[in-house]
């Protein structure tokens, strides 16, 4: 069994297998992420807001941008990512910016939803293909990082937990055969 399968199994049990997360990350972690200089510019953070909104858009609940997802990603990448992971993330972000402008002759931020979604779907397909081919030791694709951070930041935010999901701080009891109707919201689990 390869390391990837193991991580998948552990993530099923613990619900945690994020880039920068704890599982098997003890080797190769550099600790010079404590720079006083901001890692990302305001423009880059604004671009991340749009990328996050495209990954988790507004539906009957607000989208990721409403939770300042760009600032959340900036914080995690700065504090929790290794130097190598930071580099991959930032280069990936620049790649999205440049490639999009080359293709659509407009900036990602000012493009329409269909263009953004179509473009990031291509990036996502590329990320999935990369992931299938990569060895365990190879770094994660930058777009997987962005997806994970968007989901983590959104669902652990107040809006995500209480508007998109159903949050009960103190359940007070346990029901192991609680009736469920298709479409009912999932719990924000903690």
């Amino acid at each position, binding site marked *: *069994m390869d390391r990837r*399968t*193991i991580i*998948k*199994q*552990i*993530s*099923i*049990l*613990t*619900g*945690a297998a*994020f880039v920068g997360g*704890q599982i098997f990350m*003890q080797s190769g*972690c550099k*600790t*010079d*992420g404590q720079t006083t200089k901001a890692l990302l510019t305001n423009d880059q953070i604004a671009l991340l807001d749009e990328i996050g909104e*495209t*990954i*988790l*858009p507004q*539906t009957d609940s607000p989208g990721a941008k409403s939770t300042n997802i760009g600032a959340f990603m900036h914080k*995690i990448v700065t*504090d*929790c990512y*290794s130097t190598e992971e930071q580099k991959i993330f930032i280069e990936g972000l620049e790649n999205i910016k440049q490639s999009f402008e080359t293709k659509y002759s407009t900036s990602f931020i000012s493009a329409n939803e269909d263009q953004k*979604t179509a473009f*990031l*779907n291509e990036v*996502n397909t590329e*990320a*999935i293909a990369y992931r299938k081919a990569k060895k365990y030791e190879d770094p*994660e694709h930058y777009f997987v990082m962005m*997806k*994970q951070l968007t989901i*983590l*930041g959104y*669902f*652990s*935010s107040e809006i995500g*937990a209480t508007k998109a999901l159903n*949050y009960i*701080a*103190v*359940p*007070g009891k*346990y*029901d*192991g*055969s*609680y*009736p*469920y109707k*298709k479409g009912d919201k*999932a*719990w924000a*689990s*903690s």
Partner: protein
Amino acid sequence: MTDTTYLNIKSTKLHTYDAIVVGSGISGGWAAKELTEKGLKVLLIERGQRHDHVKDYKTASQDPWEFGHGGMTTQAQKSDYPVIHRGWAAQEAVMDAWVNEKDCPYSEIKPFTWWRSYRMGGRSVIWGRQSYRLSDLDFEANAKEGIGVDWPIRYKDLAPWYDVVEKFIGVSGIKQGLAHLPDGQFQPGMDLNIVEKEIAKKIGTHYKNSRHLFIGRVANLTSDLPGRSKCQYRNRCWEGCPYGGYFSTQSSTLPAALATGNLHIVTGAIAKQILYDKDNKKATGVEILDTEDNKTYEFKSKIIFVCASALNSTWLMMNSATDVWPEGLGSSSGELGHNVMDHHYNLGASGKMDGFEEFYTYGRRPNGFYIPRFVNLNGDKRSYLRGFGYQGSASREEWQRDVAELGIGVDLKNMLTTPGQWQIGSTGFGEILPHHDNKIMLDQRLYDKDGNITTDTNLGKQKTDKWGLPILAMDAELRENELNMRKDIVEEMKQMFENAGVKDVNIWDAGHNMGHGIHEMGTARMGLDPKTSVLNGWNQVWDASNVFVTDGACMTSSACQNPSLTYMALTARAADYAVSELKKQNL
């Protein structure tokens, strides 16, 4: 509690007690409670800082969005806590619980994962709470199989103390009538969920009731106890429970000890050595090091309970009475520091369960199912000795599922905001045999300035902790019996799941460093003979009868059940004995 409960170590005039308890965790809290309730004046020594019930549970009532990093740890924490980052314990909410590994290093001759919490309550605040009795299957195994030494006690010696402990701490569970996993004094058990019930039924049918899956026996309340509310199903026990819903020193034994008025506490104080009078062959007290300024102080007592957690209790003995025994107090048998055990895990199986889409769960149950040992039992015979149990749970996929290979946009959001497929996972916990060559010792090797080992006494010096104290070196590993058992643990779980209708069953084995089970034990074992054991049947050090070691260090074999309940029962039993011996003036 009075203002004088917490002593100022620098200015206190009180230096003589009936008893000193070293360590405030699961065992030390019980020693403090039992000894104070029986009228002794007790000094409790804790090397970490004060951590008050409710008041100091800083994150326990925060909402998820009040955490800065969505639960993740930072690069700075990874640097300060590298060992904790080997496993799942590195979580944003509980990083304060763990010891700073730079201040408190240890050496790994072989890989050893040591999870330490140095603050009031120790690991009682962050323990897993699973509570199972040992049985005579466990107590008799060494003697029957010629492994290690025989336990000096049997189940009947400990059973009444399990009763005492379970009633007081509150263990919820359901009686099963299994001889090898004795029933206890349970509060009502929690519920299995609908998928777990289905799998329990199918396993029972398939294996003709020779295998059992039932709700875990857990030290979370399902009925209120005095001063404590029942579990609120928040599943945030690790952060400290504002309701006192689970057993910890703070929620349970400490308030009882304080209520007697007989307890004094010093925090930020490392027990440096047990003071020993070689003429009377008794300990006279404990030398304490103040972690603030490195000054040392002597406290005297008639008896000493060593409950510093298994390996640190042995470290303390290794540093004591070295003028009489170079290897330390309790080393005359040659067994002090030997026979390190743990439970090997980090392996299991998981899969998917079709159907049950009209059901979900309400509440976050801080507990799962348990499958007790079924191998080498009732006629079953394997190629290895002893056995294992499993713990696990079933749940529907939530937003934390693996998203790397999913799409983006509205479909992704709709998928993550509704519960997904039911899945089930289970982890094995296996017994580790006591092996003389699995050992810990004080690290007396010399290191040069780059940290390389050298024999040059001019270039090298010994490693110490922040306070200049010697550190432990760990030299222990899984051996043939455990490695053979591991193959069976994953294979049996896979078969059971498949026989119960679970689909796409995957097995996993991520390997196991000693210590990773957080059930490190042994190194000062109980026995019948002072030539081959460190402690007698009452947890007394053979070489100093007024010193009792009642934490995991005392274990003669590991069994495969979670051990904390047994440490509590052994501590309560030893405390009762110590007080009766004191009254008879035998100590």
